[in-house]
């Protein structure tokens, strides 16, 4: 199973991208292309999830949403606590990094979906709803932790802490493009008539895996670019980039199987959500909301360490974990 998970085209294209960067190839995507492909992927997965929503259990959907919020609040707090052990990472860097790890990466999730599709494993649509829900809470936790650190720092130096303007930051957390597209597509998929949806299927379904390959090719290029700056980030943070997904993924497995009663596929997708770190939606909010944090840390960690770790090791590992835990 481990090797099979690496032999799906999406993962192989990711490796190709990384290889191209490694040999200094001039392979480069036109500007804005990846952003466009990313929007397509979110739209397609949203429509697919929306379509499946028509026959979901309402009670379980509500529980999923509640657990999405709980995990979105809990994971960044765990991440922050881990980073602050022995006081090696300053509060601002820790708050900003923790926000990234509490939030989710759609690209990791989609790679996990591709893995399930190839393996012929069924999954519920609840994790797609949870992906939407889990974007924002972690951002808010990160901003609050940074505001507290600012207050503490100001108190220590006898100054008045600069006032944080919350409203534009909250607006950014709740209205960022990926949330709007994903949530909108979910609703459209749920309310559109099945006949009309069938016409869209070639666009959202048939070409989905091919487009995902293209997307992951660019992700490979970008991840390799980021990985080349690992030295600047340091051993402690790189270790966090590997340990945190293991902690988050394990929590996801337990919540998915024991608390939400998901199938193997569903619990696995939740584990991947908990293990992944955002690299598109959270960085802009942190750059503006926590300017004291060094952006190179969180950008390098989420894309250069955690994303490749999840794609290559996390996906087969969490899948096995769910199977073993479900059998207990």
């Amino acid at each position, binding site marked *: 199973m481990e090797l099979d998970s690496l032999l799906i085209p999406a993962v192989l294209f990711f490796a190709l991208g990384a290889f191209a960067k490694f040999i200094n190839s001039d392979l480069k995507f036109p*500007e804005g292309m*990846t*952003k466009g492909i990313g929007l397509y992927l979110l739209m397609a997965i949203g429509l697919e999830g929306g379509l499946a929503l028509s026959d979901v259990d309402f009670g379980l959907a509500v529980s999923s949403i509640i657990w999405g919020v709980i995990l979105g609040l809990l994971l960044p707090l765990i991440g922050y606590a881990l980073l602050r052990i022995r006081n090696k990472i300053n509060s*601002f860097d820790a708050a900003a990094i923790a926000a990234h790890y509490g939030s989710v990466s759609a690209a990791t999730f989609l790679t996990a979906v591709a893995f399930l599709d190839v393996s012929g494993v069924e999954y519920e649509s609840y994790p797609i709803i949870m992906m939407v829900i889990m974007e924002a809470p972690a951002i808010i936790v990160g901003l609050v932790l940074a505001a507290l650190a600012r207050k503490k720092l100001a108190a220590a130096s006898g100054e008045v802490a*600069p006032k944080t303007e919350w409203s534009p930051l909250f607006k950014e957390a709740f209205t960022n493009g990926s949330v709007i597209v994903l949530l909108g597509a979910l609703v459209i998929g749920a309310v559109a008539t099945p006949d009309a949806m069938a016409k869209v299927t070639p666009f959202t379904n048939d070409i989905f895996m091919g487009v995902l390959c293209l997307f992951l090719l660019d992700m490979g290029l*970008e991840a390799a*670019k*980021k990985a080349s*700056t690992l030295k*600047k980030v340091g051993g402690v943070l790189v270790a966090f980039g590997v340990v945190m997904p293991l902690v988050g993924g394990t929590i996801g497995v337990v919540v998915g199987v024991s608390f939400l009663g998901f199938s193997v596929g569903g619990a696995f997708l939740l584990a991947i959500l908990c293990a992944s770190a955002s*690299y*598109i939606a*959270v*960085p*802009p*909010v*942190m*750059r*503006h909301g*926590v*300017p*004291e*944090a*060094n*952006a*190179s*840390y969180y*950008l*390098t960690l989420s894309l250069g360490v955690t994303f490749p770790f999840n794609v290559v090791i996390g996906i087969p590992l969490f899948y096995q974990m769910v199977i073993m835990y479900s059998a207990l």
Partner: protein
Amino acid sequence: MSATMCPGKSVHIIVNATFENELIRVLDKVGVTGYTQLDARGNGYSGVQGGYSEGESNVMFIVLVTTEVAKILIESLIDYIKRGYPIVSYACDVDVLITNKYGKPTI
């Protein structure tokens, strides 16, 4: 229409794209009458800014101002730098071609 060369300052400011709107507000507040804006890529304290996503895209502003306005502008930027914003800025002496095309000097 007359045109003359007038001494002034050219201030260059490089910031993350998320700071763009705020910087435009600052420029307006200190009395800058116009600016030129470019997308910028590079490497430095915040790591490689490759323009891959909004969080890692930089913008560069070029403004032509009088020495007095340049001073006020730099002071405003220092306030932000003290709050932790990574801002790269520098000023150079320039001779600006001034016309009265719009009825008043343009810097």
